[in-house]
Every structure is written in structure tokens, then in C-alpha cells.
């Protein structure tokens, strides 16, 4: 595995490997590549027909591939686990040949997520009965640490896009994290972010000990209500495909599947 030191080197890889019919999961834009190269976080592994880009994260590598030959064997040796996401349109289009290629190369299918979307005009009003749930925007150092701990305990460590404490503090400063309390005890949190006019629900979790109190429903309702500009306000999120309870919650609010899913693969 070698470091990519310049944008020019990266461009040469694109020229050499990003061809007609190349299979790729690359969804990184040029600006992000610049930053990764500047930070020394972008690496590559090259075979005769394929190239693999690895982005170093805190506890794993995120992999992007450009595959022209599915018959090659790839032996990626790293000191951390490797994960990747493969996006596809609808379950009928799940790229089984590509997943098979990675399974032959020591990766295992990990989680599948579905993309759900809602426009405010299609919001379904629901009654929230549990009035003991109190909501507030996070604004303290203590809450930052509680949120970090809750998300780390609740979300997948490889594909949950876990946030550093500094990222959490930044979202707190932007009023992008809602906390839930019952009897003054912290019991849930929701982080959101506005990107390109879409209000993305990034992370949501409820403390195991407080499940069944409708906490997630309260959090989602506030996230929607507080960010509404008009009927065209758009909300989006990714939900784990077999998380029936979460999907039911979002459907209850009117979220619908956008026919876009992503499967993650993992090599430990």
C-alpha cells in the first residue's frame, strides 16, 4: 500500500483505471480528494487491472475501488479493518457479482442501508402520548460526552460514521444535536445537518434502558418541526435495512424509500 502524494498522481489512476465499464464505488468529489491528500490520508493498492483507494480513518480504512477485472485476486494488507460501501438502485439491482468478488477476497457482507426521504408537505401527523420526554438542544460539555458515548454504544463502529468529540462539539455549536431526557436523565440524542437544502438525519440513538418510551418519535418530530421552512422542506436519512422498528418509525412520519440502498462490506 502506497501513499498518494499529489492530485496529479490520482488523476493518472483515473486515466488508467476508470474506463468504460469499470466497476466503481467512488463517490468522492475532487475537493475532498485534495483535502485527503493534503492530510496524508489517501493510499492506493494497484494490481494489473484494478486500483483500490484507501482513506485512513481513526480505526479503519474506507475503500474505494476501480475494478476492470473481477477474476483478479486482491490481498489488501493493512493494520486496521477495511470497509466499503456499494450503492445500488433497488433490491433488484443489488450487485451480486461485485459482492461475490469481494467475498472471494476475504470481505464479508456487513450491513445494508436504505435511503428514505420526506418532504414536509407529505408529513403525517402523529400523536405523541408520553409527555415525560423532555427535549432540548445540546449545549454543554457533559452532553457532548454523553452523546459520544451513546452513539458509540448504539451505532455500528465501521459504518455508523461515528463522530469525534470535536465534531460533536461543532454540531452542538451549530444547534444540530437534540437531546432527550426523562426525569432529568439523559436518554437519547439526534444529530442532523443541512446539506444542499436537504436536512439530513445523521445519527439517532436511544439509551437501551429507556426503550419503549417513544423517545425516538419525539426526537424525529422535533427534528422535522424545527427545520421546516415550507411544504418543500426535504428530509433524508439512511436506515439499516432489517431494522424493522426504525423503518416503521420513519414510515409513520411519511418517509418513503428512494429506491437507493447501500451495502457495506468488511474485512477485519
Amino acid at each position, binding site marked *: 500500500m502506497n501513499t498518494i502524494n499529489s492530485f496529479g498522481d490520482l488523476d493518472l489512476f483515473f486515466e488508467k483505471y476508470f474506463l468504460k465499464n469499470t466497476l466503481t464505488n467512488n463517490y468522492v468529489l*475532487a475537493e475532498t480528494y485534495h483535502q485527503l491528500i493534503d492530510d496524508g490520508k489517501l493510499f492506493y493498492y494497484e494490481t494489473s487491472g484494478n486500483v483500490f483507494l484507501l482513506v485512513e480513518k481513526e480505526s479503519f480504512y474506507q475503500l474505494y475501488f476501480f475494478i476492470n477485472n473481477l477474476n483478479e485476486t486482491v490481498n489488501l494488507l493493512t493494520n486496521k479493518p477495511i470497509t466499503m460501501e456499494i450503492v445500488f*438502485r433497488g433490491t433488484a439491482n443489488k450487485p451480486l457479482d461485485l459482492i461475490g468478488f469481494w467475498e472471494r477476497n476475504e470481505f464479508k457482507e456487513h450491513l445494508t442501508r436504505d435511503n428514505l426521504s420526506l418532504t414536509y408537505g407529505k408529513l403525517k401527523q402523529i400523536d405523541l402520548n408520553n409527555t415525560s420526554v423532555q427535549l432540548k438542544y445540546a449545549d454543554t460539555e457533559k452532553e457532548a460526552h454523553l452523546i459520544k458515548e451513546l452513539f458509540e454504544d448504539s451505532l455500528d463502529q465501521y459504518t455508523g460514521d461515528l463522530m469525534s468529540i470535536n465534531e460533536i462539539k461543532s454540531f452542538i455549536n451549530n444547534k444540530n444535536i437534540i437531546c432527550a431526557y426523562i426525569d432529568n436523565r439523559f436518554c437519547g440524542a439526534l444529530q442532523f445537518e443541512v446539506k444542499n437544502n436537504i436536512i439530513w438525519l445523521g445519527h439517532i440513538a436511544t439509551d437501551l434502558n429507556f426503550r419503549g418510551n417513544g423517545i425516538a418519535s419525539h426526537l424525529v418530530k422535533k427534528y422535522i418541526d424545527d427545520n421546516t421552512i415550507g411544504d418543500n422542506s426535504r428530509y433524508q436519512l439512511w436506515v439499516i435495512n432489517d431494522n424493522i422498528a426504525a423503518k416503521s418509525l420513519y414510515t409513520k412520519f411519511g418517509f418513503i424509500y428512494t429506491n437507493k440502498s447501500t451495502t457495506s462490506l468488511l474485512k477485519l
Partner: protein
Amino acid sequence: MERLLEILAGIRPDIDFVNEKKLIDGGSLDSFDIVSIISELNDEYDIAIRVTELKPENFNSTEAIMNLVEKLKNTR
């Protein structure tokens, strides 16, 4: 342009590619969609999109995408 509109509609039938001028900046398309579009453009027009072209402004409208295709066809 008509063929390009067909391709784009095949990827995201829910979007008005004729009139929408802020496909990326307005949130209609995301980077995942760009991957799908690039893949289709490579196949249809036999072009190779370089990493330097992976900029939102090249995908904000059908016209911008067409301009990118024409530019790459001319530099083959």
C-alpha cells in the same frame, strides 16, 4: 441532449432534468448519483471522466453535464 435526458431520467426518474439548474447545490443529486451518472456517461459516450472533473458545477444542470461530455469527447 435528448439522449442525455433519457439517461438521466433512467437514473433519477423523480427529477425534472429539463428545468432544474441546481441539481447538486439544490440537493436533488448527491455524490452517489454522480457515480451512477458518470458510469452511464462513460458507457454511452465512450469518454473517461477525470478526477479533476468531479466538481458539483459540472453536474448542476443537464446543460453543464452536456458541456462536460462535449469537452471530454473533444479531448479524447
